[in-house]
């Protein structure tokens, strides 16, 4: 394209904070509450700078009372606000899940569509940095299993901002999950893919539309979030050996873009699903079932998957690295799939 555009690079966390800020400027009903989201800016930076911009009435540091303030988000939404509530780590959902899956997510249905609950719950997911079994999970499969919540899992700064704006404007509960590894935080292992071009003006990325992050002809790698980065790294290595992997970033788990999955696999005829969540009863199984239903006759090989074996996430580095999908493991799985082994 010959059009001159000003390139502006942001980390994912700054892109998210910018999306929230622009919606708060546009709509006085939007506010944020959560633990350490004020002066600290959110443990993973998703609300950095917002307190200075909007003050403590709209950027509310809460007590450690997830049931209380996430439940309050539901009430505030029922009375005309559009709250964003941050659950610091998704692993903490156990202390407040009743308010989320049993109340927030069901009211619209129970009311026969007469009541709307526009809440965004932001939460950090993901491991790989030695934080142990209670601070490293992704759990989007757990949430996605329960009806009534949209589940957004961005991988790039561009998508993160556009999906945040879509999430805030959505009239449904949206669980917005950011993997710590995609945020571009200075205190995490550097990840060049966590920084990218982000337009200054507000824009939306539709919830429920997957995105081909790299086109390819030999296999489709379906994944989300940080594993998109791993898959892109793997795809570069595979390309050097003549294997062209298509990387399909789902971007949201609910709604799941089944059409995009089926369309891609019908072209490439091979499927590898890569997931940082637990293996059984989760995203990998759902994607494979989708392909079995919609592209079975097109498959040249049985679908393959990489996911966390069904164990709690171990602390020590060699064990944690053993259970997490990695570039190397994706490369190996892709080679085997293409070789028909």
């Amino acid at each position, binding site marked *: 394209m010959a059009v001159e555009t000003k390139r502006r690079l942001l980390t994912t966390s700054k892109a998210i904070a910018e999306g929230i800020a622009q919606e708060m400027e546009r709509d006085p009903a939007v*506010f944020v509450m959560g633990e350490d989201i004020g002066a600290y800016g959110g443990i993973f930076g998703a609300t950095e700078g917002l307190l200075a911009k909007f003050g403590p*009435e709209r950027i509310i540091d*809460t*007590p450690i*009372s997830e*049931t*209380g*303030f*996430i*439940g*309050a*988000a*539901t*009430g*505030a*939404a*029922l*009375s*005309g*606000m559009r*709250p964003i509530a941050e659950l610091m780590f998704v692993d903490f959902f156990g202390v407040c899940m*009743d*308010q989320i899956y*049993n*109340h927030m997510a*069901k*009211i*619209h*249905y*129970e*009311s*026969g*569509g*007469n*009541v*709307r609950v526009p809440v965004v719950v932001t939460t950090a997911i993901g491991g790989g940095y030695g934080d142990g079994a209670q601070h490293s999970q992704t759990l989007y499969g757990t949430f996605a299993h329960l*009806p*009534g919540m*949209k589940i957004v899992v961005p991988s790039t700064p561009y998508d993160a901002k556009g999906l945040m704006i879509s999430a805030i404007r959505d*009239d*449904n509960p949206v669980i917005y999950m950011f993997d710590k590894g995609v945020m571009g935080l200075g205190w995490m292992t550097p990840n060049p893919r966590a920084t990218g071009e982000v337009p200054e003006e507000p824009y939306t990325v539709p919830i429920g539309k997957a995105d081909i992050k790299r086109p390819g002809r030999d296999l489709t790698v379906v994944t989300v979030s940080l594993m998109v980065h791993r898959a892109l790294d793997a795809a570069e290595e595979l390309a050097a050996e003549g294997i062209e992997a298509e990387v399909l970033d789902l971007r949201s788990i609910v709604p799941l873009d089944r059409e995009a999955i089926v369309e891609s696999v019908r072209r490439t005829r091979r499927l590898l699903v890569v997931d940082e969540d637990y293996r059984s009863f989760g995203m990998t199984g759902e994607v494979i079932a989708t392909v079995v239903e919609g592209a079975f006759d097109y498959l040249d090989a049985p679908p393959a998957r990489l996911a966390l074996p069904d164990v709690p996430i171990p602390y020590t580095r060699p064990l944690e690295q053993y259970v997490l999908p990695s570039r190397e493991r994706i490369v190996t799985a892709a080679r085997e799939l293409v070789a028909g082994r």
Partner: protein
Amino acid sequence: MLSEQVQLEMHHQMVRIRRFEETLQQVYMEGKSPAFDIAAGPVPGEMHLAAGQEPVAAGVCLHLRVSDAVTATHRPHHIALAHGMDMQRMMAEIFGKDTGLGHGKGGHMHLFDPATHFGCSGIVAEGMPTAVGHALAFKKQGRDEVAVSFFGEGAANQGAFHESLNLAALWNLGVVFVCEDNAWAISVPKEKATAIANNSDRAAAYGIPGVLIPDNDPVAVYEAAGEAVARARAGRGPTLIEVKTDRLLGHFEGDAQIYRTKDEMETLTQRDALKLYERRLIAAGTLTEDGAGQVWVAAQAEVDAAIEYARQSPYPEPEAALLHVFA
């Protein structure tokens, strides 16, 4: 001294509720005998009736506008009616009909009514944080609406109770927390579940007023609620009100109540707050025997009309089960 109008309106609301609950009790048993089958009849599922707890609903809700938010429990009918919910659409929802508040998707524990800003849920203490959020929204919007959260004494042992009281106190929100202490959490008596005698004492832990109404008296509830609602409207923060009330029926219909003695049931019947209140009004000359009779007849007619409406209404199409997951 309350105005005659208020006294009579409380009586009227209590009678409406009593007739609603007792008539529904009979309808609920249709198709469920000789062998009780919870899934059978025009009204399936659990049915939690609030006969005996009318003073709480009448005494509090008379202070409310329909724009005030109310959250209630698995035993919600008395509060919904006193707050002004349309009885026909409410009954149709209980019958699972398409004309119901939620097109039959909610049922009696999940009544949501935008017209009266009412919601309830089947999980103990679940509505308490919701009420905090309503009040937070009102404060942000600069409105003087209040939020009222009704809950049972069993709910006061849930974390949600404590988190909600702390948040409402911390943020100085216009919430009135109303504890309906009917002494029983299903089959477990209060003294076996709660370390202190009066939950209103727990208000002290959050630095807010705690008011104890010891005797299921609608006038006492009305007066305490008036103060609490005025305080909330004026932006002076939350109040916890505890009413010692009576559950005249089982936890749900079909509950044989093997955990309660005949003596206790007899005592409860003797001190039925509605009957006592009615006698008081008649003794004071506020109400005549005839006048009282007319209130009961009119209430029965209203309930019968609601039941007829519900019976005549169509069920939703089965495929409607797939609608309304998302807006």
